[in-house]
């Protein structure tokens, strides 16, 4: 994901807005007018922008569930194996503690729960960084001034079908763009 394909354009048209309402309206209008939206860059998540931009729900919920299940199974195996189960492949070491049963599933619940949460939490965060291609030392693809502070950038893709610079400039200006300019991608 971090290696951009050679076919990707290096120049993009960017419209900057000073308010979340502005970018939201402009994004909706651009999509309605058939202008190709590359992405939006905002200092905080703007509500409704996902839908306006046509983004799908994140799939990471399924990843999270799978990881929780994995943690659950691993800790179930570890606990049963170390406490009780003997097979030809390994020898468990059943400990007699107060005459309690060797395989008390209820006593395993706390560790089962903790390990499910541990796997799900750490794994989902790593999956987030992997999905977004984030890692220490990564350079953001665009350097859009102020988008982590107080500016909201709508980036349009000039290489995609339906791009029309005049129409785009006109539309963004109507929705109160503070600045419209071309930018080189890193």
């Amino acid at each position, binding site marked *: 994901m971090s290696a951009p394909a050679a076919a990707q354009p290096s120049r993009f048209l960017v419209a900057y807005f000073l308010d979340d309402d502005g970018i939201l309206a402009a994004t909706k209008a651009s999509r309605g007018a058939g202008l190709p939206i590359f992405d939006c860059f905002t200092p905080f998540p703007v509500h409704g922008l*996902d839908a306006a931009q046509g983004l799908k729900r*994140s799939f990471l919920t399924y990843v999270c569930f799978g990881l929780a299940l994995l943690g659950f199974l691993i800790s179930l195996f570890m606990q049963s194996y170390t406490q009780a189960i003997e097979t030809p492949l390994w020898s468990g070491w059943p400990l007699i503690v107060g005459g309690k049963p060797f395989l008390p599933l209820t006593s395993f619940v706390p560790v089962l729960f903790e390990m499910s949460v541990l796997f799900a939490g750490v794994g989902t*965060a790593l999956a987030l960084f992997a999905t977004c291609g984030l890692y220490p030392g990564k350079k*953001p693809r665009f350097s859009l001034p102020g988008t*982590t502070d107080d500016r909201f950038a709508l980036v349009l893709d000039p290489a995609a079908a339906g791009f029309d610079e005049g129409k785009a400039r006109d539309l963004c200006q109507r929705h109160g763009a503070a600045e419209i300019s071309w930018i080189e991608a890193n």
Partner: protein
Amino acid sequence: MSAPTSELRQPLVLGNPPYHQITDEVLRPMEQWPSKLWWGTFAVTATWLVLGLVAIAWQQYEGMGTWGLNKTIGWGFDITNFVFWVGIGHAGTLISAILFLFRQKWRTSINRSAEAMTLFAVICAALFPLIHMGRPWFGAIWFLPYPNLRGPLWTNFRSPLIWDFFAISTYFTISAVFWFVGLVPDLATVRDRAKHPIRKIVYGALSLGWSGSNKHWVHYETVYMLLAGLSTPLVLSVHTIVSTDFATSVIPGWHATIFPPYFVAGAIFSGFAMVLTLLIIARKVLHIEHLITMKHLENMCLIITATGMMVGLAYATEFLVSWYGGSNYEGFCFYNRATGPMAWSYWIMVSCNVISPQVFWFKKMRTSIPVMFVMSLVVNVGMWFERFVIIVTSLHRDYLPSSWAMYSPTWVEYITLLGTFGLFFSAFLLFTRVLPAIAIAEVKSIKKFAHKGAHGHAEPAADHGGGVPALHHAPAAPHQGV
């Protein structure tokens, strides 16, 4: 923009500052040389920390005999401090995760520092079992199940102490992950403002190349919610499991099924008091009174009163059950707790935790900074004594009158406790210097809330028909900035 103002819901950010001003104000403390006040406080807390380290080193060198424990009282300051610090941490997770799931937008100004507090508190807590081992470098070997040459002899998963190990380490890890995920967008803000090359490199690496892309925000928001969803049952499980350390034993005074909810309520109670202590100071020192407003403090006072009464109910229930249960030993334990030689600690606990938080019924009291500050300290003293009462008074007079004993902690134990306070406050002070103490992105996203968006939410008195924004109030509020 003609922003309709609702007087029903107080704004969460006063004055409706521009986005850039929020960035500036939150980051200013970390972009300038710390004040004399900061250095002075840090000097004091760092001294406590150093004293604590000396005490810990002495315990490791000389052995656990430096503690005031005896045959009867096998657990004293160590576990009291452990439970106390774990409890402090719980408010952080409550604010960051549970209030997030309940869409309590007022949490946004305080969640970052509360989460930091959680991490530091859990570190302080974890120190005590580690020291208690005598040879802490074996800690991981004794607790982690790993293939070994002892038989193989594995850890006993039927023991609550092992559950505790897994609970605390998971809690720390997940809190750290949650905190870091929340920090990434703000670290990118710091990176983009950085002027010094080293600062650029450090914050550039920490922010992982975050750009604010909405394609990333979609995943980010989902993951943030998932982590909140995972942390919520986690935080409840942690103190539940801590309470099973006691509840699964057969010691009168510990052997109670009420312990898990009782401990969780107490943890939230003490944690909120600690958040209050820290934030009252932080908002003043960092000049962010309009971001952490009186409303935030007032809400925390209300939670303190509510959880304080839950704790009070638990104290009463314990007594009721010891009488109703008809066990002589159980009955004696509680009679001795309230009237025996350690009754002073019991009554400190009751007056600090149950009686004094009742002052917050009065609006004047819960909006007065000095009252709040004193109360936050009182509650923490009370909650420390709660753990002391449960642990020491239950142990000091057991089944056999010939083995009854008293407990007098040694200087080593006092200094170690002081050392953990030093660690906690020093870490918190450093945190306000190197990381944004307020979640900038989140505060920006709720800035307009109550200036503009309040009417969209269920307002009990806003049913004036037609779903019109609450315009019938004259826009008299001074924060009509836009």
